[in-house]
C-alpha cells in the first residue's frame, strides 16, 4: 500500500517537471465557472515544496500500518494543495482550499489522541478562514465580473477604496487563520499536537504554507505591491501596510516563542514554534521590497524543511517510546544517535545559526528590515530569535540529553530506517541550503519578476547577496568544518585517560543516594519559571482562549434562548400566527 502511494505521490512531481512551467489547463465547469490551472513561478515553488514534503512523509509512513483510506485522503490533500498553488482563478483556488480543509479534517480525526473539542476548533477556524476567503472572492467578483486572477488583478485599481481595504482584510484574515497569526492561532496548537504524529508534519510544514502562498498571491499578484504602496502610503523606506503587518508578525513571533518555551508536550512546543516562525514570514511579507519577498520565500522553504524534519523526528521517537512529553523522555542520545544528530541539525537550523540554511533565511529577512529601516521590527525579530534558543535547547535536551526518566527508555532501539531516510534527506537539504544560499537566488528571481520587483544579483552558488552586505555560505561552512576537524584532531592527539560512561546514579544528590526510581532528568521543565520575568509574565498569562470560550458560551446561550421558543405548544403557535398576521395586516394597510 505504501509503495503504491509513494509512486502515486511521485507522479505529480514528474508531471510538473515534465511541463516545466508551461502548464495551462482550463476546464469549463458550468457556463459561469471555469476551472483553470496555470503554472507561475510562485505556484511552482510552492507546488514542489508541498509535493516533495508529501513524498518524504509517505516514505516515513512505510513503517506504520496505515489503512488505505488514510493514504487516499492524504493523496487527495496533496492534490488539493496542488490545485491551490496552480490555480488560475479563485474558484479553483477555493475548491482546493475546501478540499484541503475537509480531507485534513478526516485525517486528523484518525488520530488516537484527538477529541471532539480539538476537531471542532480545527474545522471551525478552517471554515471561518474559508468563508472569509469566499466573501472576499465574491466581493471581488462583484466588481470584476470574473473569478480569474488576472482579470481581478486588472480591475482592482478601479475599485472603491473601502472595497479594496475590505478585500485585503478579508483575504488576509483568511490566510492569517491558516498560518496561525496570534489571536487566530487558537486552533493551531491543539490540532498540531493531537493530529497523527506524522500528519502533524504536513500540517505544520505544508498546510500552514498554503496561508503564506495565499498572502503572496493576494499581496503580490492580485493587489500588487505597487498598488499597496499607492493605497496606504509609505513610512520610513517601506509601506504603512507592511509596517502594520510586520508588527502583527513580530507580535506573533514573540508571543508564540514564549508560549513554546513553557510547554511540556513535545508537539505543542513544535506547534508554537511553527506559529512563531510563520510570524517572521508574515512580518516581512508585506514590506513589498525585493528582500522582503525573498526573505519570506526563503524562510518558507527553510521552515518547511525544518518542521518536516523535527516533526518526523518526534513522530519516530513517540512511535518508538510511546511517550510524548519532556517529563517522560530523556537520555535517548546513545540509544538513538542518528535521530539525535538529525534533531540537532534541525534545531540549529531552527535557531537560525550559521552555517546551516536557517541562518541564510534569517539573514535575508533581517536585511529586508534594514532595507526598509524598520529597526524596531528587526529588534523584535532578533529578540524572538534569541528567545527561541531556549525552546530549541529544551527540545534537544528534554528528549535526548540528560538521563532517561524510566527503565524502558534505556532499552530503546534506534528508530526504523523509514523514519530516518526522510530525515537524512532533509538534513542534507538544510546543510546544502546553508552552504549554497546563492542557489536560492536563482529560484527566487523569476518570482520577483512576477511581482515586478527588482531581482537579486547572483554571484556564485555560495554567496548570498543583499542590499546591505553579503556572506559566503560556502566559505563559512568549509571554515567551520576545517576548524572543527582540526580542533578535534588536536584534542584527540592529547592522550588522557577517562572513566567512560558513568552510571547515571553516580552523581552527588544532596548527599543522598538516588534509587532506581528517582528521576534524575533535571531541568526538562525549564522555561516554566519565566513568568517571574514581568514582560514574559504579561505574555504568558494572556490567552486568546478566554475570548473564544466566551464566544462559544454566548453562542450556546443564544441557542438556548432561541430553542426556548420551540417548546411545542401548538396553542401558542396558533396565537403567534394570528398575532403575526394581525401585526402585518396593520402595518401593511397603514
Amino acid at each position, binding site marked *: 500500500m505504501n509503495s503504491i502511494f509513494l509512486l502515486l505521490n511521485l507522479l505529480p512531481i514528474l508531471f510538473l517537471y515534465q511541463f516545466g512551467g508551461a502548464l495551462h489547463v482550463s476546464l469549463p465547469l458550468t457556463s459561469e465557472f471555469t476551472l483553470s490551472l496555470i503554472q507561475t513561478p510562485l505556484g511552482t515553488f510552492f507546488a514542489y515544496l508541498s509535493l516533495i514534503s508529501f513524498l518524504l512523509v509517505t516514505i516515513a509512513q512505510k513503517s506504520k500500518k496505515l489503512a488505505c483510506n488514510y493514504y487516499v485522503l492524504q493523496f487527495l490533500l496533496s492534490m488539493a494543495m496542488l490545485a491551490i498553488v496552480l490555480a488560475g482563478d479563485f474558484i479553483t483556488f477555493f475548491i482546493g482550499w475546501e478540499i484541503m480543509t475537509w480531507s485534513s479534517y478526516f485525517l486528523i480525526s484518525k488520530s488516537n489522541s484527538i477529541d471532539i473539542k480539538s476537531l471542532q476548533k480545527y474545522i471551525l477556524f478552517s471554515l471561518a478562514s474559508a468563508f472569509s476567503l469566499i466573501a472576499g472572492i465574491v466581493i471581488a467578483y462583484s466588481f470584476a465580473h470574473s473569478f480569474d486572477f488576472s482579470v481581478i488583478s486588472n480591475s482592482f485599481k478601479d475599485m472603491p477604496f473601502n472595497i479594496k481595504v475590505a478585500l485585503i482584510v478579508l483575504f488576509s484574515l483568511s490566510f492569517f487563520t491558516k498560518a496561525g497569526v496570534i489571536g487566530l492561532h487558537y486552533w493551531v496548537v491543539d490540532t498540531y499536537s493531537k493530529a497523527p504524529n506524522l500528519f502533524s508534519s504536513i500540517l505544520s510544514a505544508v498546510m500552514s504554507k498554503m496561508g503564506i502562498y495565499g498572502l503572496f498571491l493576494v499581496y503580490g499578484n492580485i493587489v500588487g505591491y505597487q498598488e499597496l504602496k499607492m493605497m496606504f502610503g509609505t513610512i520610513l523606506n517601506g509601506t504603512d501596510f507592511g509596517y502594520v503587518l510586520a508588527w502583527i508578525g513580530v507580535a506573533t513571533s514573540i508571543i508564540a516563542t514564549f508560549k513554546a518555551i513553557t510547554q511540556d508536550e513535545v508537539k505543542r512546543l513544535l506547534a508554537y514554534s511553527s506559529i512563531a516562525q510563520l510570524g517572521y514570514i508574515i512580518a516581512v511579507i508585506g514590506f513589498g521590497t525585493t528582500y522582503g519577498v525573498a526573505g519570506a520565500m526563503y524562510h518558507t522553504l527553510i521552515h518547511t524543511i525544518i518542521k518536516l524534519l523535527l516533526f518526523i523526528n518526534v513522530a519516530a521517537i513517540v512511535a518508538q517510546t510511546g511517550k510524548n512529553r519532556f517529563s517522560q523522555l530523556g537520555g535517548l542520545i546513545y540509544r538513538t544517535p542518528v535521530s539525535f544528530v538529525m534533531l540537532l541539525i534541525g534545531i540549529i537550523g531552527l535557531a537560525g545559526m550559521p552555517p546551516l540554511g536557517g541562518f541564510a533565511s534569517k539573514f535575508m529577512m533581517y536585511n529586508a528590515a534594514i532595507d526598509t529601516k524598520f529597526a524596531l521590527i528587526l529588534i523584535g525579530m532578533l529578540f524572538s530569535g534569541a528567545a527561541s534558543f531556549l525552546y530549541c535547547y529544551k527540545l534537544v535536551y528534554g528528549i535526548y540529553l540528560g538521563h532517561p526518566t524510566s527503565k524502558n527508555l534505556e532499552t530503546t532501539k534506534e528508530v526504523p530506517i523509514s523514519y530516518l531516510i526522510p530525515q537524512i534527506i532533509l538534513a542534507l537539504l538544510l546543510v546544502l541550503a546553508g552552504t549554497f544560499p546563492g542557489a536560492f537566488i536563482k529560484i527566487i528571481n523569476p518570482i520577483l519578476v512576477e511581482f515586478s520587483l527588482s531581482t537579486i544579483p547572483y554571484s556564485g552558488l555560495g554567496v548570498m547577496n543583499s542590499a546591505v552586505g553579503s556572506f559566503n555560505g560556502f566559505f563559512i561552512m568549509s571554515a567551520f568544518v576545517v576548524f572543527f576537524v582540526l580542533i578535534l584532531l588536536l584534542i584527540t592527539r592529547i592522550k588522557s585517560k577517562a572513566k567512560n560512561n558513568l552510571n547515571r546514579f553516580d552523581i552527588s544528590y544532596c548527599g543522598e543516594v538516588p534509587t532506581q526510581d528517582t528521576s534524575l532528568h533535571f531541568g526538562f521543565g525549564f522555561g516554566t519559571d519565566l513568568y517571574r520575568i514581568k514582560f514574559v509574565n504579561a505574555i504568558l498569562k494572556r490567552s486568546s482562549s478566554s475570548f473564544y470560550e466566551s464566544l462559544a458560551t454566548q453562542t450556546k446561550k443564544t441557542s438556548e434562548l432561541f*430553542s426556548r421558543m*420551540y*417548546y*411545542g*405548544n*401548538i*396553542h*401558542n403557535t*396558533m*396565537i403567534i400566527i*394570528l398575532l403575526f398576521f394581525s401585526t402585518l395586516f396593520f402595518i401593511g394597510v397603514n
Partner: protein
Amino acid sequence: MLDFFNNTQTIHMIIIIGSMALFFIGFYGIATQKNLVKVLVSFDIMESALFLFFIGLHYQVGLVAPIVDKNLKTFTSMVDPVPQAMILTTIVIGLAVLALGLSFGIEYYKLTGRNDISKMNELRD
C-alpha cells in the same frame, strides 16, 4: 320594511356583519380554547363564516339558482355558479379534515386520556 331587506346592499351588509361575527367567534375559539374538539369546532365555525360570506356576497336580489330546468332559459338571470361549486368542494375538504382531526383526537385520548392541545408537548428535546 321588507323592501329594505330585499335590497342587495342590505343583504350583503347583513351577511358581512353576520359572517364576520361568526368568523370572530371562531377566531376567539381558537385563540382561547385548548380542548382539541373545541378547537376543531372553532375552525369549522370560521370556515362556515367564510362560506356564508362568499356565497352571500354572490347573491343578488332577483337572480335565481343556477340550476338548469325549463324555467331557466338564459344565463343572465342566475347567480354565478362557480362560488357555489367551490364552496361545495371546500365543505367536503373541511369535513374530511374535521373527521381526520377528530379521529386523531379520539386515538390520542384513548392513549393518554388528554385532549388539551396546550399540554401536547411530549415532542420536545
